[in-house]
């Protein structure tokens, strides 16, 4: 059974009197434990899809089914409870956290909200989460702005896996990182996927990264699906104009970590 099924999703924005379909009749699915990449030029609607899937904004049409339920029908407390299973990692790890937060608080919040562990047990859980993403447990009391960008993105991943989700949406999650750090974070994501069978909806404009981590890829153009299929096949021989342009624009397609298999 599919983990996530998106059917005929539509989101329109009005701009200067005209309406623009940022997401125009998009359908796709994600299976448990797989990585589906969404790629496409800037403004093609990738982030809008991420926000729709996470119920941060509401669609103008279409269906979203998550873990077998009509996800768009969930409201209030039921929606908040289900959010434990569907997490997100943002592009800019500094903007993604409350500027006043500490590492411990950022990780404590999901554990507390979803009742994952008691107040007394949580510090130990936080330490375990930090270790799980390759950070020292003594980072916990540090302020978010006092740690490096790579460490921050690891904290973001720790926060995302705190409630044992089945799907994590990553919107340009490695784009802001240095190349060396990027490789480490991608490896961490691949490790987590292998061990916890987490599925990723992986948004990136970097086809090199997409080929390294994704099983399948969908290429978007102006809110519509231009092409989709096996990641290496599509990137190796793109059929659509957008796909060819993206491949041509990618600097070197073989500079990232080892391929996912």
């Amino acid at each position: 059974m599919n983990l996530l099924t998106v059917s005929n999703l539509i989101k329109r924005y009005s701009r200067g009197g005209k309406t623009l379909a940022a997401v125009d009749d998009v359908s796709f699915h994600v299976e448990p434990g797989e990585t589906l990449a969404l790629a496409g030029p800037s403004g093609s609607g990738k982030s809008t899809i991420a926000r729709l899937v996470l119920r941060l904004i509401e669609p103008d049409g279409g269906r979203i089914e998550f873990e077998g339920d009509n996800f768009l029908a969930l409201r209030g407390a039921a929606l908040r409870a289900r959010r434990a299973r569907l997490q997100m990692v943002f592009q800019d790890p500094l903007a993604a956290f409350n500027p006043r937060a500490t590492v411990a608080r950022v990780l404590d919040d999901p554990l507390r909200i979803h009742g994952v562990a008691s107040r007394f047990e949580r510090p130990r859980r936080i330490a375990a989460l930090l270790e799980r993403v390759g950070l020292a447990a003594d980072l916990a009391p540090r302020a978010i702005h006092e740690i490096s960008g790579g460490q921050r993105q690891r904290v973001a991943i720790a926060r995302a896996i705190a409630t044992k989700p089945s799907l994590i949406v990553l919107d340009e999650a490695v784009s802001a990182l240095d190349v060396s750090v990027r490789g480490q974070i991608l490896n961490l994501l691949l490790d987590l996927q292998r061990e916890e069978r987490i599925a990723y909806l992986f948004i990136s404009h970097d086809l090199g990264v997409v080929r390294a981590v994704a099983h399948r890829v969908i290429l978007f153009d102006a809110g519509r699906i231009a092409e989709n299929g096996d990641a290496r096949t599509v990137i190796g021989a793109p059929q659509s104009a957008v796909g060819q342009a993206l491949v041509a624009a990618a600097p070197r397609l073989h500079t990232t970590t080892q391929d996912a298999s």
Partner: protein
Amino acid sequence: MRRLRRFLRTPEAVAGTILLTVLFAMALSASLLFPGDPQAIAGPALLPPFQDWSLPLGTDRLGRDVLAELFHGARTSLAVGLAAAAAALVIGAVVGTLAGFAGGLVDEVLMRITDAFQTVPGFLLALAFVSVVGPSLGVVVVAIALGTWTGPARIARAEVLSIRERDYVAGARVIGMRPLEIAFREVLPNALPPVLAMSSVIVAAAILTEAALSFLGLGDPNRVTWGGMIAEGRAVLRTAPFLSIVPGIALVLTVLGVYLAGEGIVETTAVRRGLS
């Protein structure tokens, strides 16, 4: 520590801090230096200042010790000013945060209420409120807050409107945080700095409003207030002008002190933020 040193490098801040320190010292030592009722008769009526060293600033029309009244008045001014400003800031921050964060109908209703309060001059509102409810310290505090919370509310709302679009607010929703917790724990603290930057102006205005209410006889009758002292001295303005001048100067220096110290704080924090 570094911030304190930078703060003390600006001359206005130093002047303001000295004035405020003196004011606080007066307020805190009032009942130590002048125990007993400051409204009790202490000597002959209308004794001019610097004549009798047991009554350095002389006495008023009823023979009350002006210096004792001044000290006890500092207490009232400061207490009312700080309490009213704190109440205005709290109400304003809460209303502004709710309006900005909730948006839609809640925002609409709260902002219409804010408009309504803002169109009535704050002083008239305070005057009307005290006239209806009756003068006491608490009522005066509420009356002043009623006329001043709208400014902080607007600033808080504007700040919240920009903060609520940030990624970390979306992040808080994604982890399933309740809207009220997001509004008050994640958004409000980050919206506070520009609101708090107004506090010196609000405290100064509150102190002046309190004095004006007391001057009109609408202060707490059981408390000595500078406004009340000025009103008292008005009757003998020609023969004993010092009775109005002394509390008048105290009032001016206090407002100046609050304002200067507040500006100093805003400036040093602004510099700090500019650097980082």
